[in-house]
């Protein structure tokens, strides 16, 4: 009899003072927090797709031939130690139907102190994209001594344009198909290169 009374007493007290039993929620936290901590990602990674023009397979070049003209025959970005240069071979009609008239244009963006002038490049690319909206490819011709970081920054500028509209961050593609190449192709080195793979292939037992 007494024990029942005691129990009732305790339960009334718990209701009155909100003395909540925290053990289950602590158990939950102790399991969840380490689990999420272990799987937490602080540096997010993403990918940049690139193409290698000289080494492209035969199917790819065939595909390229079938593509409809976009008005730009070729768009090249020269990444040099002393700055950037944008070269384009344009056909005058943006639809690309009149192939007879070609024009070569070149815009230089010299280095400013130790920074590449990416803002001016972006402006120029934006104008080109407005004029020739269907063109998507750009070939990077990179100097040997340029660091990888500079290439990635230039690629960022050429692939997508980021802007704010009405307080919202938006982006639109400029020339997302980037092909990486060197400033001048070493035709002579090519045969020697193939010879090199042949020797290793033979060693590995591949014909």
């Amino acid at each position, binding site marked *: 009899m007494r024990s029942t009374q005691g129990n009732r007493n305790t339960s009334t*007290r718990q209701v*009155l*003072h909100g003395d909540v039993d*925290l053990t289950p*929620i*602590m158990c939950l*936290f102790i399991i*969840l*927090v380490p689990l*999420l*901590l272990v*799987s*937490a*990602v*602080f*540096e*997010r*990674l*993403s*990918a*940049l*797709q*690139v*193409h*290698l023009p000289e*080494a*492209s*397979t035969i199917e790819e070049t065939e595909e390229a031939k079938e593509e409809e003209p976009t008005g730009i025959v070729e768009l090249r970005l020269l*990444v040099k130690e002393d700055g950037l240069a944008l070269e384009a071979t344009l056909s005058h009609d943006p639809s690309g139907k009149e192939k007879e008239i070609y024009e070569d244009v070149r815009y230089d963006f010299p280095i400013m102190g130790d920074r590449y002038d990416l803002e001016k490049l972006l402006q120029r690319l934006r104008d080109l994209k407005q004029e020739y909206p269907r063109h998507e490819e750009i070939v990077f011709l*990179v*100097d*040997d*001594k*340029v*660091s*990888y*970081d500079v*290439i*990635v*920054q230039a*690629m*960022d500028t050429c*692939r*997508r344009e*980021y802007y704010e509209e009405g307080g919202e961050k938006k*982006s639109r593609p400029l020339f997302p198909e980037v092909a*990486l190449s*060197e400033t001048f192709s*070493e035709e002579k*080195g090519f045969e*020697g*290169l193939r010879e*090199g*793979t042949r020797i*290793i*292939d033979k*060693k*590995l037992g*591949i014909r």
Partner: protein
Amino acid sequence: MAQNRSYKMSRTRRTQTWFAGRSPVLLTPLVDMFTILLIFLLMSYSTGGQLMYMAQNVLMPESLSREQLEPAVEIAVATDRIYVDGEVIMDDLTEWYTEKKLLMPVLYENLKLKALKFKRMEAEVPLFHFAGKITVQADRAIPFHVLKKVLYTADRADFPRISLAVFQRD
């Protein structure tokens, strides 16, 4: 009035018994802390994405790209060594800073063997498809002529679909 009195009484009694019976640990701040931590971690939790072996001394460049990494063979190029899938395969790159040739034989051999293995698997396992994908993590300081050799070698070794891994920037 009577209720109020009993409340006061019970409160004093409770405090007394509580201190007498147990150690005076208050769990509330701990629960608060855990709750905040849990909310923060849940917000930064990301499903999907590709886990990647992060090589030592490789500080990748930052980019605005939001493309997802796909499962692929991973090459990591530090300023002095090259890893393939987390294993060091070339531990001295000094000669490659002056070398004129484009093909790196050790890397080529390693990748070619992997490609062969995948092709064999493709023939044996019905749902497996070898697409020649490769992910390159390279240090932001390496010059293009070293990167060019790595990319060229990968392409020659039947990995033509190259993605560069980068850190996301806002």
